[in-house]
């Protein structure tokens, strides 16, 4: 196991004239939970999509689980679990059908699938709805199915893009409890979020704005450095004064 689950150096992505991500560098040690924060359009999803091999960086480099995100994108895909910002499971399939489908795509055998589905249903609190169409589930349930599906092949790294956006507070709490269990098992998690209370649960946080990374570090350290009581204050200050990009 690599000591660093994610390392990126000067990652940059341009879409035509739009500079979506600019010179972003950070490292995430294995086994930690890293929160990427920032307003809409700040480049969080674009950063994530480069890590997953969905987008090719315009410049810069990165390694995920020790694999190069450009030349070894396919191997990266096989080893990580990803939940996209938009709910993207098959709504016309049941919970188990989705899990089985993604499981077989990751190469699980039928026997493994049976075991894994039952195990995940228990772990992700999906019991009782195994054979319900995903489209008929509520937001919180859907997010847990998506998490189960991203975790079906037991990846060592989970990349979650705004997993709790628009989900009720109780479901959010259940979701974070699940994440904490995974962390305790040594899974590394990268999560983007709007919620400051969630950010405070992270070992490491970073603020993005306009495609740049403005702060990076453990929440306690950031608060201490700025002499502010909450993470939210830190970010408000960063955002208003422009700040020095973190390099």
């Amino acid at each position: 196991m690599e000591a660093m689950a994610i390392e990126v150096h000067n990652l940059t992505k341009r879409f035509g004239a739009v500079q979506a991500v600019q010179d972003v560098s950070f490292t995430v040690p294995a086994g930690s939970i890293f929160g990427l924060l920032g307003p809409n359009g700040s480049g969080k999803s674009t950063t994530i999509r480069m890590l997953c091999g969905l987008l090719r960086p315009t410049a810069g480099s990165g390694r995920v689980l020790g694999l190069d995100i450009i030349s070894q994108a396919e191997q990266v895909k096989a080893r990580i679990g990803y939940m996209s910002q938009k709910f993207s499971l098959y709504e016309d399939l049941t919970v188990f059908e989705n899990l089985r489908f993604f499981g077989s795509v990751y190469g699980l055998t039928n026997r493994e699938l049976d075991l894994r589905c039952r195990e995940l249903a228990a772990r992700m609190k999906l019991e009782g709805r195994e054979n319900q169409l995903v489209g008929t589930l509520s937001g919180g349930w859907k997010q847990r199915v998506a998490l189960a599906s991203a975790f079906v092949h037991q990846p060592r790294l989970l990349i979650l893009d705004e997993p709790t956006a628009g989900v009720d507070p109780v479901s959010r709490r259940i979701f974070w409890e699940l994440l904490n269990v995974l962390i305790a098992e040594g899974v590394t998690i990268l999560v983007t979020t709007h919620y400051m209370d969630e950010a405070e649960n992270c070992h490491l946080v970073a603020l993005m704005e306009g495609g740049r990374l403005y702060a990076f570090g453990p929440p306690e350290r950031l608060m201490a450095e700025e002499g502010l009581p909450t993470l939210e204050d830190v970010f408000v200050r960063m955002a208003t004064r422009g700040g020095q990009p973190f390099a």
Partner: protein
Amino acid sequence: MLRRLLAIIKKEFIQIRRDPPSLVMVFVMPVMMLLFFGYAVNMDVDHIPLAVWDQDQSQFSRLLTENFVQTRYFDLSYRVQSSREVKALLDGGRVRAALVIPPGYARALRRGEIATAQLVVDGSDPLVARTALSMAELTSRYKSQEMRLAVVDAEGVPVPAGPGVDIRARAWYNPGLESTKFNIPGLIGLIMQNITVMLTAFALVRERERGTLEQLMVTPIRGIELMAGKLVPYILIALVDVGLALGIGVFWFKVPVVGSIFLLLGLTFLFLIFALGLGMFFSTIARTQLQAMQMTMLFILPSVLLSGFIFPRASMPLVIQYLGNLIPLTYFLDILRGIMLKGVGIEYLWDDVLPLAVFGVAIITLASWRFRKRVE
């Protein structure tokens, strides 16, 4: 590899099964379209109601009337005595044609002069009018000889020199000139094309529209596996549809398959490859199912008009014929009609098979190339 492929195929079938519009499109639409078009596009006009105003009242004028009715293209609906009645019937739409035989008809025939009778046709429906006129012409030309011969027999007068040959026109392959025989193979081709193109185009666009494509792309699945996994179910469905359409054509519309059914199925498969490739290609361009639908529609129109599905290609301007050559359905219709109606073997079909194969390979290549690009 195989496991991933099977997973996609299985998922695709579950989704089709759960989606009533898909099911309708797969199983109901071909049947409905075939029945609907089979009858509606039936361009045979027969039993045209006819009024006869026989001012001659001779053996010959009665023979002429009889000849018209015998063709079965005309039904003798009214016998009238005045031009006013003729006009009233035509105006009221109660007859579509009126045969007016003038008083000196028999006398003219006996003298070897040109005997004229008049057929008045309601031109408001051009198809009916054209049929009526051409049938009248055929009848009178063909029958005038018989009539002249009858004159010879009766009076012993030598026949005036006329065209010495019997200009009886006889249609091959489709002796009754029934348009169903011509239309059904065409319909089968058209329906196959439309359903296949639409279904495949939708299958991928739906994934993009719902965001599931992104989830698929972070899995180790390869573009080729995804594409093949999407194609296999629709090939199977398309083959079922071919069977359905052929069954209806043969058993309901009684259009025979004179040639080899295996050759027919084999070449249909070739055409399906093209249609699937086209659907795939559309799906790499369209962002929404609506756009995919519009593209399909945009493609259907020229293929209906230019392929010879309705209008015979031979009577089109040359430029339009060349354009028709760019439409694969054109070749497939030739193949279908050739095998079903004429019973020809592959040796007569290479002209159609080769272009079709070229189109198929080209579109599949283009689609996979675009598909891979989109995946990146």
